[in-house]
């Protein structure tokens, strides 16, 4: 693994002619937990989406593990392949697949993208559910989950393939204070295991 699993160098992001972020520089070590803070509309989500390869950026460079993203150029298929294996993203509104149970949501990528057996994927999912305290909700559909439960299932889905970098968009937004503390503890445990996290 590279010395810094996540590096941003002089990244500039603009949308509709408006510069949201200029010269963003980050060097994140393994096990480091970094929070991006800023008012609404300041570009926090935009940075995360650029790191995850969902949107482009206008200047600078982003490195995630072995993947290197160039400004103004869509990554090719091979680069995207490397990127997807290096970073997981938990969306603000979870974006769980609505037609699948929590367990199916978590197992889908390991089985279809990483070629794991259904049994192996289910075992790992159960482990994550237990760690995150949602082991009783495995068969529930996303619409049957509370905001906090959906958040934790989404974290489990992102972690199911063990990405070195985990990005989380507004992870505390849908949680009440006790749940926030709980999630804080979970994130501490995960970073202690050597993962780079970016809650904001």
């Amino acid at each position, binding site marked *: 693994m590279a010395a810094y699993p996540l590096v941003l160098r002089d990244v500039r992001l603009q949308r509709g002619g408006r510069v949201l972020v200029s010269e963003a520089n980050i060097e994140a070590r393994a096990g480091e937990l970094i929070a991006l803070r800023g008012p609404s509309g300041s570009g926090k989500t935009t940075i995360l*989406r650029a790191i*995850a*390869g*969902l949107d482009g950026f206008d200047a600078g460079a982003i490195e995630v593990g072995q993947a290197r993203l160039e400004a103004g150029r869509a990554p090719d298929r091979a680069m995207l*392949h490397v990127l*997807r*294996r290096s*970073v*997981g*993203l938990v*969306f603000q*509104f979870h*974006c*769980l*697949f*609505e*037609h699948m149970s929590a367990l199916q949501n978590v197992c*889908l*990528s390991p089985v*279809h*993208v*990483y070629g794991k057996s259904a049994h192996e994927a289910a075992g790992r999912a159960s482990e994550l559910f237990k760690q995150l305290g949602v082991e009783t909700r495995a068969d529930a*559909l*996303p*619409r049957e989950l509370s905001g906090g439960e959906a958040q934790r299932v989404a974290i489990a*889905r*992102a972690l199911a*393939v063990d990405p070195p970098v985990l990005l989380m968009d507004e992870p505390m937004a849908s949680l009440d204070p006790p749940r926030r503390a709980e999630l804080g503890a979970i994130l501490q445990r995960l970073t202690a295991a050597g993962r780079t996290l970016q809650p904001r």
Partner: protein
Amino acid sequence: MAPLRAGRLVCSALLVIFVSAPALAQTPPVLRWAGDPEGGAPYVEADPSDPSKLVGFDVEVADLIARGLGRTPQFININFASIDQSVVRGDADIGLSGIEDTPAHRTAFAVTVPYYEFREVLSVRTADAARFRSLADLRGRRVGTLGGTIAYEILRNAERNQGIEAVSYDDDVHPYSDLVLGRLDAVLLDNVLAERRRRTTPGFITQPDPVAVSHYVGVMAPANGVLRDRVNGVLKQAMRDGTLERIFRKWNVWNDDQPPLFARVNAGTPIEPLVMVAANGVTPSMAPSLATMPKLEATRAYFPALVRASVITLIFSCAAMLMAVALGIAIATGRIYGARVVRVLLVAYVELMRGTPILLQLFVLYYGLAAAVRLPAWMAALLGLGLNYAAYESEIYRGALLAVPVGQLDAAKTLGFSDFQTLRLVRGPQALRLALAPMTNDFVALLKDSSLVSVLTVVELTKETQIFATNLGSWVIPGALCAALYLAMSLPLAAVARALERRWRWT
């Protein structure tokens, strides 16, 4: 006094109106006669030199009758199969357009005396003239005719008794073109029609021995007995004074069969509506006409045929829908994920199929392409429905695919799915749930639109009902049964779709 006088005037005016209204209804200045110019010459057709004028022997018979009644003829254009029902409705006073003398017409309508005798004759390809001389020679062969006619009834009987396959057409042109193309082995129709087609379509001959003999009559509403008797008087007089003979000679349909008919009509000799002619020493038997049976018995006798036709409707609709769904998904996917050239081609396909009538597409597939590829009727029908509905389905799926939230697609991307995996595992299944209600709607519509395939000789529920109604002389029971059978097919479908919608609902 003035107000009183004014009141009297008003009363007088009302009196005049009330007295004259029934008088107008009983003796209209015109004789409205219904015919179908699509049947063409020599019955009724638009004059080639002046399309606003009608010509044909039935046009002249109508003129003759109107003159005899002291009225002016007024033509009402009605589809051939609906002429008898339209006179019952009161759309016309009399129907004349090669209307056949059937037991159903005699039972359920007021019909005139027969004014022309025709023969049901067998036409075969010239090369088959020696081997297909009668229906008995056509076991296992396809024999076509115009649906809802005496000839079709004869063929349905021969289907049961002589093992032929009866094929129903909506017009009298395509049976002969299909005969020459080899889709049929014989055609059974009136000698007048056969002779007319023989002049324009080379490649077939008409066997000299008729299969049956019947007549043309005028048909009127059952309550029009008085008018019928007056029309009969006019026709009998025209038979005696040679006017009818002159008309038929002018249109080259006069032959030796007519003088004996005229003599029998004028002598008051009872005339059977249909006489089967012996072939090889055997006179084929005809099942008793439905029109002469009690309605309940007739319904019981015909019900199995309606159920069989429903099964055909259901099979056609399911198969066509399967094709439409598969193709619709492919088109929708191509329009969202495909390259520009693919997208342009698919848009062109969708607009072509949506923008032109499905009937036209069916005709082009079956008849238009016949010179290049001779599709069987069932395949052309299936392709026609499937290809047409695929265009509509594709728009439903495209809308549903575009309606899947972007967040779901972003989540799939970050998890490493390819476009195809995203479509198969996430976007497709979610779109399917969104598309379910409009899909059900389309399937029910297809179930009903499948009746259009009858123009390609496929006898499905609506066509079979039409034949039943023609034979019975009424639409009431056949229409009610037909509606009940369509509902029996569509309601369970709607119930299944509702149950699936409930099960798949997530918001």
